[in-house]
């Protein structure tokens, strides 16, 4: 029960016996040695532990209890939109009519799921002002890669060979990494002093070799790119396409549309904006929306409605091809669909208002204690910095983060965006109460206060967590990646 108790690995629980009989022998079948050649089989028994169900259940229950989660506390991880994940989303996505459907069943007996896919494609397109949407990508980065491929296919199709993607230095790591996946070279645009794209620099970099400008908006500093319309004009004039990283869509969904801003491609993180659970790492879903002229390149399979029937199209002449084994993370899509239908446009807009208000409210309370990197109206998140050594001494972002853990909060995103020293990126989301926001603000103040009187204690936090300050250096130097007895 004490959360800091050592929990053995499941391998240490091994009884080395026979274990349970999980399946009865089917009548009328032959024994395995008559069916498969000996040399195809394992020569030594599989080295898995033998552990009873009661022990397995206790093991994973105890492990779970060592986790922080949205359901147990405030999780203001910037750029991750850790909002409340409604229970109904999970429950309805788990109906056996959905989970029991094989992906090769054929469209006429899969109309329920296909209907939902077609409808959510439409909602996502309408919300962002795009002409079409694919649900195949399994996460944001997968969507980015898909988007880059679409852009490449477009240029290639026109015989226009381009090799460069421009992205701000504040961009998320997946942006340049996704560009690389399709063979593009990323050139980083230094952010201006206002945290936004520096127009002059952009102009200098735009040329015939630029395939795309890849932006996150609001950007990772929490600011709306104020010159967005100018940027799109310049990029398009140079023959480049505009890519919109929609990870931060929660700030503006229903308020303003990337399509209206002139973007050609946008990806969604359903696991952020549309409240599907993050599962300790995934699965997510990263649909991609495109403008009219990119429609021909969308990946297959394409799901649409033709003459009243929801249809799967597996071939499309100019398509970039297939991106996932079947149709992407359909179970996640179902959850997001439930959420969107419950909210309606009204609810989605209300999310944006409240997400932004919560961030602004926290920034207002915190800015005198830890300054923001930049002035200006933040959107749904904001970035503070402890880089002022004269003011904060040895108290760095890491220390604040660990002290927050001790106080029952998850830490904000730290040391991102990379361009901000000692960065602390806070995204409260709209599902947090004023009470919680106030408690978090108080905790920060308390930590700053405590640092004055008891700096050592603060610098060595956390003290209340199951383990504290793990040795990551040795872990990377001498990686121990599997259990050995």
């Amino acid at each position: 029960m004490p959360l800091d108790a050592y929990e053995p690995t499941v391998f240490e629980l091994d009884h080395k016996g026979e274990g349970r009989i999980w399946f009865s022998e089917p009548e009328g079948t032959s024994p395995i040695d008559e069916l498969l050649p000996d040399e195809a089989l394992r020569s030594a028994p599989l080295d898995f532990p033998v552990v009873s169900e009661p022990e397995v259940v206790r093991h994973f229950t105890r492990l779970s209890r060592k986790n922080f989660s949205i359901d147990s506390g405030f999780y203001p991880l910037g750029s991750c939109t850790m909002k409340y994940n409604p229970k109904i989303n999970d429950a309805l996505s788990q109906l056996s009519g959905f989970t029991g459907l094989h992906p090769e069943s054929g469209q006429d007996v899969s109309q329920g799921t296909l209907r939902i896919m077609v409808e959510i494609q439409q909602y996502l397109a309408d919300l962002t002002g795009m002409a079409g949407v694919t649900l195949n990508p399994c996460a944001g980065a997968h969507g980015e890669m898909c988007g880059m491929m679409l852009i490449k296919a477009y240029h290639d199709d026109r015989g226009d060979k381009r090799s460069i993607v421009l992205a701000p230095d504040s961009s998320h790591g997946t942006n340049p990494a996704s560009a690389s996946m399709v063979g593009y070279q990323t050139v980083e645009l230094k952010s201006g002093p206002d945290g936004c794209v520096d127009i002059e620099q952009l102009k200098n970099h735009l040329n015939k070799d630029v395939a795309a400008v890849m932006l996150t908006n609001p950007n990772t500093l929490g600011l709306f790119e104020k010159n967005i319309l100018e940027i799109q004009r310049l990029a398009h004039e140079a023959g480049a396409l505009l890519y919109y990283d929609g990870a931060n869509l929660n700030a503006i969904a229903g308020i303003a549309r990337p399509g209206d801003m002139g973007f050609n491609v946008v990806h969604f993180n359903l696991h952020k904006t549309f409240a599907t659970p993050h599962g300790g790492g995934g699965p997510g879903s990263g649909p991609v929306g495109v403008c009219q002229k990119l429609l021909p390149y969308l990946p297959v399979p394409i799901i649409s409605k033709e003459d009243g029937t929801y249809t799967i199209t597996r071939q499309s002449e100019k398509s970039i091809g297939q991106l996932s084994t079947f149709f992407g993370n359909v179970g996640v899509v179902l959850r997001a669909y439930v959420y969107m239908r419950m909210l309606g446009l009204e609810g989605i807009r209300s999310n944006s208002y409240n997400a932004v208000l919560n961030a602004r409210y926290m920034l207002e309370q915190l800015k005198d204690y830890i300054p923001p990197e930049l002035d200006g109206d933040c959107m749904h998140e904001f970035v503070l910095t402890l880089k002022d050594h004269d003011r904060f001494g040895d108290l760095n972002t890491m220390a604040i983060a660990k002290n927050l853990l001790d106080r029952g909060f998850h830490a904000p995103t730290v040391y991102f965006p990379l361009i901000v020293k000692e960065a602390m990126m806070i995204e409260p989301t709209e599902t947090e109460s004023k009470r919680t926001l106030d408690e978090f603000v108080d905790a920060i103040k308390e930590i700053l206060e405590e640092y004055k009187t008891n700096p050592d204690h603060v610098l060595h936090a956390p003290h209340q967590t199951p383990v504290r300050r793990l040795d990551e250096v040795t872990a990377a130097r001498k990686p121990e990646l599997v259990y050995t007895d």
Partner: protein
Amino acid sequence: MDFIPHTQEEFREMLQTVGLENPNDLFRTIPEQLHNPDIPFPEPMTELEIGDLMNAAAEANRGAKMPSFLGGGAYDHYTPQAIPSLASRSEFITAYTPYQPEVSQGTLQAIFEFQTFMSRLTGMDTANASVYDGASALAEAALMACRITRKEKIAVSSSINPHYLRVMKTYLDAPGIEWVEIPCSDGVTDIEQLTSMVNDEFAACFVQNPNYFGNLEPVDQFRSAISAPKCLLGAVVYPHSLGLLKPPGEWGAEIVVGDLQSLGMPVQFGGPFAGFVSCKQKHVRQLPGRLVGRTKDADGKTGYVLTLQTREQHIRRSKATSNICTNQGLCALMATIYMSLMGPNGLRQAAEMSVRNAHLLQKRLCGIDGVNLAFDKPFFNEFVINLPMPVESFVDTARELGLLSGIRIESAESPEKDGLLVCATEKTKAVDIDFYIDVLTRILE
């Protein structure tokens, strides 16, 4: 609104605190002309109403209730109830990636255990904490092989799941990596062709066992059949089968990929599933995706952290081993629980019963006049049959009669030579086999 705690009063109060009067001022940095877009959208629904809608949609998936003999990369194995019961604990579900290890030991230790299970299952030294699905695992492994060997050519057997091959093609074509398909003969990779096609320009050669047709490949011959010693042998596996079959580590593979779905996840229209990439220790720094390592904390206590992160996009950006960030963590957790529950013998039993059922089914199907096994090879729990009628129309008619009879294998030559890929698992019931025989007989009559 349904999930927002603030009352109107609180909203106004907070708005005042930030010095604003009009809520719309929250968005004043957005250019005027972008405001108030006209967005068509259905009306909000209550929880009760959306429940009705989703129940109706689930009912409309008639296929979910039909006896099914579909496999081809998505397998209807039994999922013990403890898996959803545990994996649905909100501490697992509503956590993010374990960036703060002190409050993420649950997720981290589970991944560490997952890595251990996968290494033992495949005969590799470790595995990453999942990628999107089996297909992307193959694609990532191909890219990984190119990085390891600094070569830009990939060979694949044409007996690999065609969906995987298509996805790999999408991934490789974009950065311009070449790939070739090695043909099959009698339903398995043609070893002679392999030998003649794969030379030292190739980064890796990938084969699948059991292959897409369910057949067992001549796995012991592959390593020696590849004349180029630096060309890596990569394996695509159906992890469930490794409860019984010789692990690829024993036949020379250095990278092993596959989909975890068969280890405790439902078929759910193809996703979420999860891919994995296992490899030998020496290749670990080229692995895509997250890895967890065991270490000590400040008090000397054992703990777990994300490690070797310099491979990853958030550190290495455009030079990362992959762009993957969000993965399929919860699916990897489910697989971990599955393997923990099953143990070596449970997994073996499940695999065995699947094989036995498949062979019974095959014998009964091929007892019908004109129905023949397409290949003369040992097979696992899937097999291809030829029918005395066009496969496509058989599949359609059978479906109308309430049977999901299999997956059509299109013949390059002519529709008459199409095959039907039929699958059984430990869940296949005698009555369902009877029903299949009945439907097939009726249609052939």
